């Protein structure tokens, strides 16, 4: 009778499918336990930007504007100023007095990192950028610059400039 064979075929298919389900129940899971555990990123992951310093603690950015030119979403805003004898911020002639990245617009394509001739801007692995207020998504230089090491000598900063010097 065709009906009985249909039932048997259906039942065998069911057993076959369920055997896979039970086998897979014993397998380790692939998902990350975020937010209970930190997620695992690959080395190249393009996360929030980090502005680097050189071995003397000076900013690597020399305000050449290449990152702003390369950016397809035009989210980088830079204002440049000259380094002086009294105030030295970067290793080159100029430094970025203002360096803003608008994370409302940034698409994390990595073109700025590719363009930077001094390796000043890099992608970190930061990703928790979500905010209820879009105005907080414009990151300033202070938000992105790597901190000086704790034992670094506090030289070459604005506050030490003599009166009448650079401002």
């Amino acid at each position, binding site marked *: 009778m065709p009906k009985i064979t*249909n039932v048997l*075929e*259906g039942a*065998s*298919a069911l057993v*076959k*499918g369920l055997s*896979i*389900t039970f086998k*897979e129940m014993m397998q380790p899971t*692939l*998902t990350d336990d975020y937010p209970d555990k930190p997620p695992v*990123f*690959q*080395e*190249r*992951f*393009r996360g929030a930007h980090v502005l680097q310093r050189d071995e003397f603690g000076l900013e690597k950015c020399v305000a*050449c504007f*290449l990152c702003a*030119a*390369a950016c*397809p979403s035009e989210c980088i805003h830079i204002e440049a100023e000259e380094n002086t004898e009294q105030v030295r911020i970067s290793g080159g002639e100029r430094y970025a007095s203002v360096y803003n990245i608008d994370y409302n617009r940034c*698409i*994390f*394509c*990595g*073109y700025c990192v*590719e*363009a930077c*001739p001094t390796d000043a801007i890099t*992608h970190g692995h930061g990703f928790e950028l979500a905010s209820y207020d879009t105005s907080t998504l414009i990151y300033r230089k202070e938000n992105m610059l790597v901190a000086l090491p704790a034992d670094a000598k506090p030289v070459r900063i604005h506050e030490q400039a003599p009166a009448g010097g650079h401002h």
Partner: protein
Amino acid sequence: MATLEMNPAAAGDTGSTRRMTLNMGPQHPSTHGVLRVVLELDGETILKATPDIGFLHTGIEKQCEVRTYQQVVPLTDRVDYLANLSNNLCYCLAVEKLLGLEIPPRAQWVRVMLTEITRINSHLVWLGTHALDIGAMTVFFYCFREREKILRLFEMFSGQRLMTSYFRVGGLALDAPRGGFQAVRRFIDEFPSNVDEYENLLNANPIWQMRTQGVGPMPVDDMIDWGITGPMLRAAGFPWDIRKTEPYSSYEKFQFEVPVETGNDVWSRYRVRMRELRESAKIVVQALDGLPEGPITADAPKVVLPDREKMKTQMEALIYHFKIVTEGFSVPAGEIYQAVEAPRGELAYYVVSNGTGKPHRLHMRTPSFGNLQGLGPLLDGRLIADSIAAMGSMDFVLGDCDR
């Protein structure tokens, strides 16, 4: 458009229970995106189905006209978010053809390897969601488990899971990462056994068979008239595959079959895609085995960014670096149509250059748009319950359709 307005009076006498107009979407779980289908129904039978597209229009084609050629690459990621690398590849091939660049074999092999992994990724998402629509939930979890592995590979190579931008005009953005090829090898060695698993779950499943076999046929001539390509066309017995008919990126050097079925129904489209998963895995293995050594970018100092070490030590390279980043490169005036076989069918970029550093016009011939044209003829006269299976078998991505 008058045809898309909800007008009960137009569907016969008001108060009649026989004919009615029903909106499916734009927010409907089985349309997988913002697609609206206006269905004219007689009971359970669809008299007329009219797709209403454009809810996901992003104006990407227009945006491309104000960006330099290299800056367009991240935009092409966002056209079809399940086949980002296929879009990267198609755009790069088109511009490279206009420039007359020769891409070194290593870059071509890596491109083939990654676009085939993209095909696997896209078909896995299709299989998982399509099975979910039809009621087989388990497959979804296994498909997305394998997809997670693929997304990690993409992250490993390019730095992002979805928006890769890994192929650039002139080659690749970066060489393969440490352990990258080993990771691909581990995945692809295991993958055929995963496909066995999906097939064991679905092939003999009587519900799956009943919901798919004989559902959603469409004459092959109509398909060609409407511009339907890809697995839909191959499941109707028409062996059309750009990788074979117009090989690009050294596809002629790889051995693979073009799976063709003759059933012309949802089941055949499922069979074609399952066989394509295995064929793609074979191509990836070949690409890994025969991977040539050598550079990853073309020898074109005015187009390709110089090597970083050279850029930091040689003045000439630094000058080129500044010039390329700030101004881009100019492309000789002309126009080009470059097609590739994307997971959904024939994807093509039509680039018009006026000799400047930005495209004068960039048109995308996307497979989802072509395939959706056939939605009306596919659904007319069918049952409403079958429309979900038939629509799912088209495998459209609305971002690809509306761009």
